[in-house]
């Protein structure tokens, strides 16, 4: 789960990290008032769950309340398309209005989980502002990596080492080390998959300040963070993906036209590859999970069918815990409820296969059965019929 910048900054402040004074604004006039309170100049920043806001026109330094008002008016209620969103972008429901900082130098700092190290690592670079991905490809030597031993935690000497490599000295070195230590505590205590500050700055007065703040909290750990659960912003999520997640269905929307219903993540990925190889690009990834009921299968089918791109549906179920008859009943249920007509290619294996097939055969739906993935490929190679 992603947090908004303003939410992450509130958490940063609780851990003693300085952030610019800021007010969240939901209207243009609130943005103007906030700018006024900061002396007539401010940074106005769209609050969306996506990076790349600056390049996409979602951030502006304004020199008057009027400018703040008109910039905010243009953003609020619109959608921001960045290099990290899809073409539809994400809605802008609020802007963060912040007092301007006096920037001396900029740095990049993040804490993330490293799969090779099997634990947290701190990543830093003296070149702030630009994207770390770009830096990693252009100048990998400029990236500082500090793995953390989970028993010891990120030690103060490690924070000083990173700060030194960032080119800091004197009081700024000591202050930055404190900030790095706090970022690691934020990462661990809030079960984050990522805490990122880009840029972390040294101000003209030598103080350390987080100008931006990004926090991703691990979904699987939300059960023990009632406070963070409150920060979820469903408007920022893909509506179908969020609806699916509510029912414990893993769904990712894609660009093609073949709706896919599969049980198991690995088989679901494999099924997309099969569809693609057959020249029939998939409209979605969907893993309905192991112990699904007919209602859950019906829910999954209705999510698939609510995507207007879907002109046919591919079902690939390896019936173990999920029985084939249950899957078949769920499919028929959803098609009847939605009065849908998209043809189906159905491949099922395992428990109660014959019963599942006869339920589908008796349903009157346009079903092509396939016994193997090779037959699925053949069935998908023909264009859909009967819509």
């Amino acid at each position, binding site marked *: 789960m992603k947090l908004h910048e303003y939410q992450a900054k509130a958490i940063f402040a609780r851990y003693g990290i300085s952030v610019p004074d800021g007010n969240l604004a939901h209207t243009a006039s609130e943005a103007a008032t906030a700018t006024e309170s900061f002396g007539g100049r401010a940074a106005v920043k769209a609050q969306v769950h996506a990076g790349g806001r600056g390049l996409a026109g979602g951030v502006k330094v304004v020199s008057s309340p009027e400018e703040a008002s008109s910039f905010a008016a243009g953003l609020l209620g619109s959608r921001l398309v960045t290099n990290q969103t899809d073409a539809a972008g994400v809605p802008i429901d609020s802007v963060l209005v912040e007092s301007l900082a006096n920037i001396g130098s900029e740095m990049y700092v993040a804490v993330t989980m490293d799969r090779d190290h099997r634990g947290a690592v701190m990543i830093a670079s003296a070149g702030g502002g630009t994207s770390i991905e770009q830096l990693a490809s252009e100048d990998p030597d400029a990236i500082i990596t500090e793995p953390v031993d989970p028993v010891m935690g990120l030690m103060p000497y490690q924070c000083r080492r990173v700060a030194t490599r960032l080119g800091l000295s004197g009081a700024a070195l000591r202050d930055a080390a404190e900030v790095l230590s706090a970022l690691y505590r934020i990462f661990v205590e809030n079960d984050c998959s990522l805490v990122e500050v880009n840029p972390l700055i040294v101000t003209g007065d030598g103080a350390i300040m987080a100008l931006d703040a990004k926090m991703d909290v691990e979904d699987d750990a939300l059960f023990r963070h009632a406070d963070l659960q409150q920060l979820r912003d469903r408007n920022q999520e893909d509506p179908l993906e969020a609806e699916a997640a509510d029912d414990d269905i893993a769904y990712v929307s894609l660009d093609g036209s073949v709706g896919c219903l599969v049980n198991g*993540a690995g088989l679901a990925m494999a099924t997309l590859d099969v569809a693609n190889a057959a020249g029939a690009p998939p409209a979605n990834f969907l893993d309905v999970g192991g112990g699904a009921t007919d209602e859950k299968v019906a829910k999954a089918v209705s999510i698939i069918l609510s995507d207007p791109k879907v002109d046919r549906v591919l079902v690939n179920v390896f019936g173990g815990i999920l029985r084939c008859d249950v899957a078949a009943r769920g499919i028929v249920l959803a098609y009847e409820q939605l009065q849908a007509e998209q043809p189906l290619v159905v491949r099922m294996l395992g428990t109660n296969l014959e019963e599942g097939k006869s339920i589908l055969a008796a349903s009157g739906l346009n079903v092509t059965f396939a016994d193997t993935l090779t037959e699925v490929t053949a069935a998908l190679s023909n264009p859909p019929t009967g819509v």
Partner: protein
Amino acid sequence: MGILLNEQSRVLVQGITGREGSFHARACKDYGTQLVAGVTPGRGGQLFDDAVPVFNSVEEAVDATQANVSLIFVPPPFAPDAIAESVDAGIPLIACITEGIPVHDMVGLYRYVKANPARLIGPNCPGMINPGARCKVGIMPGNIHMPGRVGVVSRSGTLTYEAVGQLTEKEIGQSSCVGIGGDPIIGSSFVDILRLYNDDPDTDLVVFIGEIGGNMEQQAAEFIGSPEFTKPVCSLIVGATAPSGKRMGHAGAIITGESATAESKIRALERAGARIIPTPADIGDTVATALVEIGLGA
């Protein structure tokens, strides 16, 4: 012979009285697995299916039954404790099926397991099976397997069944099948399992199924290409269609950089000399052809 499991495997199930635990404990037992004990705190003294004693702790279960494999069906908030309890009781082989354990919990747990004489398979995995020994420690449907000399290793559940189904269809039997799990931090890597297959005199060829995310497949490729590894490998990597930055069901299946893509993994495996399975529909055919080429096929 196969790997990890054999006729001497004595299995206990943690969470045996739960819905999933009881269903799968029964399926394992029906397959032929020596199910010697169950553990559910507070239910000690009961009998599962009138036959299998239930204990309050793993320690008690091991003392009474000499269990040497643990299979875990415990919900995510309590699964790390269940794994640690089995490690502490001296169980050498632990399979954790549970999906959804917070990654932060696995960081410490991974090190705890490594510091002890225990091997963890999973979490978020289907478990493992040795068809020749009629021993199944996991949630895979037993009936699709047949005894034989091809080893299978994969991250996933149903895709492993798909692979096994295609092999059995061609009457290519399996020495063992292992699903190592779809999470970012798991107890055993591909290399760990490939090493076991390399040392197993009853495995002729390994089917290795990877997916997008991380670089465990590249590490496996490096091992497969090394002189130490001597067995032929047929490899399938899934997720070529996946968009960057999206979690594809498995917590670990997310493209975060170039090395996490299917293309990069396939290239590494090609360089290592593995036979690439072109699409998921071609698993059985590719293995059958490979077996003929190495003089072991029909």
